[in-house]
């Protein structure tokens, strides 16, 4: 048989099969259940409100706050500079570049931590890095940053430093009252180092 016929006999059926079957668009999970449980147990995904407030005030360009609540809730109240990705639309193509990247620290937040954690778990299982969760959510944010409680007079200095920071941060971010900065704020909350993500590797080729 002529080689051309032989080739046609092989590739045409293959082409017909591949044209007939639905395209596989499922994304395999990148983490095993054990790995994910390990990360959940060490609570690596959490950022404290103090750390986040510090980054907002310093206008840290690597911070990206992502409100995973519904659009209604987002419009009623949101944190300064936050963008809205409702958890129901998390896997939408248009958000893939935001969630799967190496340059920024994405911080999910919701009212509590439940919804934000759901978003974090899904993105983490897809193998995305640099996604975090605001510890305690907006509820704790209100308590800790916008209406901090004055520590007892017997508390250690660190507690007062924390209180001063929260009070000034709260005022700067639209809550609380007067500011009385007395301490160097940078000692109060250490910014977690951004984890070095997998650089999107590119391979080039040609003739």
């Amino acid at each position: 048989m002529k080689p051309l016929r032989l080739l046609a006999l092989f590739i045409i059926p293959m082409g017909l099969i591949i044209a007939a079957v639905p395209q596989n668009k499922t994304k395999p999970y990148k983490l095993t259940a054990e790995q994910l449980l390990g990360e959940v147990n060490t609570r690596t995904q959490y950022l404290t409100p103090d750390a986040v407030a510090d980054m907002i005030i310093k206008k840290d360009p690597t911070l990206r706050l992502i409100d995973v609540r519904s659009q209604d809730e987002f419009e009623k109240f949101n944190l300064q500079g936050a963008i809205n990705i409702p958890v129901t639309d998390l896997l939408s193509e248009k958000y893939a570049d935001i969630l799967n990247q190496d340059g920024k620290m994405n911080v999910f937040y919701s009212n509590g931590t439940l919804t934000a954690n759901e978003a974090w778990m899904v993105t983490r299982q897809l193998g995305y890095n640099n996604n975090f969760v605001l510890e305690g959510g907006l509820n704790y944010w209100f308590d800790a940053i916008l209406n901090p409680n004055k520590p007892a007079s017997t508390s250690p200095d660190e507690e007062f430093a924390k209180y001063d920071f929260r009070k000034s941060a709260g005022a700067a971010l639209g809550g609380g009252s007067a500011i009385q900065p007395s301490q160097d704020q940078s000692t109060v909350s250490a910014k977690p180092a951004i984890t070095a993500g997998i650089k999107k590797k590119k391979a080039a080729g040609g003739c």
Partner: protein
Amino acid sequence: MGPLSVNELISENTNLFLAFIIGIGFGFVLEQSGFSSSRKLAGVFYGYDTVVLKVFFTAAITAMLGLLFFSLFGWIDLSMVYVNPTYLTSAIVGGIIMGAGFIMGGYCPGTSFCGASIGKLDAFVFIGGLFLGVFIFGIGYPIWDGMYLAKFLGSPKISTTLGLTDGVFAILLIMVALAMFWVAEWAEKKFPREEY
């Protein structure tokens, strides 16, 4: 599962090592198929030998079917496979320069090294010209960087532009390729050349 290196199933070094092995295999097959002869390569432009067209199109179709089936079986995530970005103006201008060089020199960049490996002098001259071209491009970059980066289209796929699924586009491409092979074999009979 795949791509292996992007998903860190193999290290960057293993990846390069595999590329080295595959590269040797690729070069060997090219040489054995006669791709180290500039007359054979140039034949595709005159119609007397169309093996270049047939080999490269067969390779493209094999790779295409392989990737689509791998994706179907869940062995590779096609969204993570790197697609060369399209700069339309550079693609057209570069294509013309490459084509002209191919007709005049009788080699494409890969096959010139194939020819050089068995000591063909014209292949060495071609490689010299290749590096000269690279050098001139680098030196003169400020002159043509506007054109080089013009009309950036991202990484579009023909199938998505036409609104087809990858599979339907694949069968269309297979039909087009087979038609081209048929025309090519007809051309070989029409414009035969005895010695080359």
